[in-house]
């Protein structure tokens, strides 16, 4: 234990300034100058084998006797997921992609010793193939505004001194020593910060309710139970910058006068849990958690609670019930958790991304934060961009940016010149926004008016090959599994909707099915107990609103235009377009393609299993969906 004071905190920060200057490119680049090699080490990077790359580079550096001036640091960054493993070399900010252990010797001899970055490992513009050496010149990064993710290529997440050098705990020091609870809440209200978990409730207001509740015991909870398929914003924040979340919780605790906190983190996120635990231990050692934090006379400590795998536990009252050791089922509100939450005590629950914004709001002022973003939705939002888009990964943008800018400027558009059909926002609680409405801005109200929700940040791009009925069915299947079963509309209603959707996808749709889906959806929305049920019909209702013709095609014409619902289409070969190259015949797992070389081929329908391999393989668009 080496409890630190505010002065000592500042001293650690000044000492670390030098490394931060290198990593922000503020020092002149010289051939034999100090180099920091920040290799990505989030869950996605580990899966793409970043560890052997890291070890190979470390070993090469040691063998060449460069360990004095070249440091290899593993960050939590896995933002640009489809290029992993990636590495940023500072102070130049050179961005290397798709690394393998064999690249280590070139990087060390050419770049670290020779001073000439290795061009073959640069990122290449997918449009013209031009190499772009520096991270910040890559369009994917250039259009982003990093607040929550500001540290993700700059820190070793397992070293508290790195974080302190980047101002960690400065906001907490200010809040605990210089500010009253009222002043903290005022700053958060001024900032306009709204809950990033999806519902968008004003954070300052939530805190005010809990602050007003009279009770000696109160709790601060952090929701890290990120369960939407395709969303990993919170995991990345926890893996890259865990101290930002701890600091946000300390500030929240002071604001509502709580002394105990829990972080509810999914057990499926072992790396996030590991890094959180390390961060908590290091913060405790410095006395940044525990009693009399930074000599302020304020006590606060927290622990990590492992979620045991239930999607509904992302709902606040279900999460609270789960920490109490019960089946994670939601409760009736009111009373709201701010009055009666965990163990019946006043409780605030904020999501990871919300809390990670708080330290900077306190440090730089609510007005600074409110200047970013849109009028009703201030600040930035992190999205997990995926699906049919060239650049997939995490993106943080100012609120108010049109969806089209995110998809085209940052995401680099839809691959293979296919036609964009829709953007799905908000996962199973959200909806599909059609291509015609792509100018919609990322603002809570603007998105809600389209029938989708901002949600926690999952953004899945869909193209002409995605069937919207099938997508709706997919989400209903997920929700049927995850409905907790407590209230009837959700438990029974989702099941019925799924049955109808399955019938439609398998060619048994009946006239009137769409009307029944709408009626069921409306009932489930109105009468479910919690947010899961109240939003569950969204994927169906929003696709019915914009893609009704696809439902009608399925039901009335027994046709799935996208070629997804296997009972409702077949493949044929366009004899005019077919060159007889035999590629499809070679790839067909069924030997269903017949025909001589250089002559048009045919598909034997009774052998075809509609796996789509020929459709993907054909270079002449000769395989058509009928």
């Amino acid at each position, binding site marked *: 234990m080496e409890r630190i004071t505010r002065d000592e905190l500042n001293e650690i920060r000044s000492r670390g300034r030098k490394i931060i200057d290198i990593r922000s490119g503020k020092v002149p680049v010289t051939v034999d100058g100090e180099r920091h090699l920040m290799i990505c080490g989030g869950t996605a990077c580990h899966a793409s084998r970043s560890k052997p790359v890291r070890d190979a580079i470390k070993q090469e550096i040691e063998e060449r006797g460069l360990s004095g001036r070249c440091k290899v640091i593993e960050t939590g960054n896995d933002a640009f997921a489809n290029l992993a493993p990636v590495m940023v070399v500072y102070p130049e900010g050179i961005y290397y992609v798709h690394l393998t252990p064999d690249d280590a010797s070139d990087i060390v001899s050419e770049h670290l010793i020779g001073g000439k970055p290795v061009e073959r490992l640069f990122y290449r513009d997918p449009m013209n193939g031009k190499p772009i050496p520096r991270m910040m010149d890559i369009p994917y990064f250039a259009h982003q505004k990093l607040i929550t993710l500001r540290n993700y290529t700059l820190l070793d997440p397992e070293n508290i001194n790195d974080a302190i050098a980047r101002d960690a705990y400065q906001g907490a020091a200010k809040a605990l020593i210089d500010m009253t609870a009222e002043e903290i809440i005022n700053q958060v209200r001024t900032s306009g910060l709204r809950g990033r978990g999806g519902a968008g409730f004003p954070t300052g207001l939530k805190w005010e309710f809990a602050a007003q509740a009279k009770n000696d015991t109160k709790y601060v909870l952090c929701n890290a139970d990120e369960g939407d398929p395709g969303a990993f914003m919170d995991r990345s924040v926890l893996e890259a910058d865990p101290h930002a979340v701890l600091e946000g919780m300390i500030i929240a605790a002071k604001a509502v006068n709580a002394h105990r906190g829990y972080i509810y983190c999914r057990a499926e996120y072992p790396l996030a849990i590991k890094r959180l635990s390390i961060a908590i231990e290091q913060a405790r050692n410095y006395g940044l958690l525990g009693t009399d934090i930074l000599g302020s006379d304020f006590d606060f400590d927290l622990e990590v*609670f492992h979620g045991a795998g239930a999607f509904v536990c992302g709902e606040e009252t279900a999460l609270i019930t789960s920490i109490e050791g019960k*089946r*994670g089922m939601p409760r009736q509100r009111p009373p709201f958790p701010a009055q009666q939450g965990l163990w019946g005590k006043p409780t605030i629950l904020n999501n990871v991304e919300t809390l990670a914004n708080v330290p900077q709001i306190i440090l730089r002022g609510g007005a600074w934060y409110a200047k970013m973003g849109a009028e009703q939705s201030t600040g930035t939002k992190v999205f997990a961009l995926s699906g049919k888009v060239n650049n997939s990964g995490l993106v943080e943008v100012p609120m108010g940016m049109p969806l089209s800018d995110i998809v085209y400027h940052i995401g680099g558009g839809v691959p293979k010149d296919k036609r964009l059909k829709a953007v799905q926002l908000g996962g199973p609680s959200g909806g599909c926004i059609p291509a015609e409405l792509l100018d919609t801005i990322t603002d809570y109200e603007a998105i809600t008016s389209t029938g989708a929700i901002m949600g926690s940040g999952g953004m899945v791009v869909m193209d002409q090959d995605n069937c919207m009925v099938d997508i709706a069915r997919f989400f209903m299947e997920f929700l049927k599994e995850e409905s907790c079963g407590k209230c009837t509309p959700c438990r029974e209603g989702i099941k019925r909707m799924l049955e109808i959707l399955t019938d439609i996808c398998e060619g048994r749709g009946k006239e009137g099915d769409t009307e029944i889906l709408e009626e069921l959806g409306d009932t489930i929305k109105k009468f479910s107990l919690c947010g899961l049920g109240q939003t569950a019909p969204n994927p169906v209702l929003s696709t019915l609103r914009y893609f009704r013709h696809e439902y009608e095609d399925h039901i009335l014409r027994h046709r799935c235009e996208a070629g997804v619902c296997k009972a409702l289409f077949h493949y044929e070969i366009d004899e005019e377009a077919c060159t007889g190259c035999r590629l499809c015949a070679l790839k067909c797992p069924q030997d269903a393609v017949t025909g001589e070389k250089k002559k048009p081929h045919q598909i034997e329908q009774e052998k075809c299993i509609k796996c789509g391999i020929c459709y993907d393989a054909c270079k002449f668009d000769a395989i058509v969906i009928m």
Partner: protein
Amino acid sequence: MKEITVAMWNEINGIIQRYQGKPGALIPVLEECQNVCGYLPREVQKRISQGLNVPESTIYGVVTFYSFFTMVPRGRHSIKVCLGTACYVRGGNANLDYLRDEFDVEVGATMKDLRFSLDSVRCIGACGMAPAMVVDDDTYAQVNRANIMEILDRYK
């Protein structure tokens, strides 16, 4: 069924003791006990019930609510045989039958020596590699009777 050894019981008792009297201890206790035994049979639930003074019915309710908890033992490695359409017609089903006979284990269950848990999955999107099989985190292509045992020999 996997026996709960004396050493395991000692560990379970130790876990219960550490959490006794702590509110909301049930889920962490279940998690730690599952880490010790690999699963949560009724006898373990009964011991936890007595130790924490929580009704067995409540414990059973919690165990069956969360997908992380299991009442059947899991193997050291998991085999998932793809039964998507492409894999099915290229012999995925035959592979599954073969493994079921060779290892004397039902689908969804675990071998007696706890080496493998055997499961089937819906399409994993590897139709071009059909029939496919996933062992732990590794995906294998074009699996058949001739090579399947050779692949599985790598997992002990």
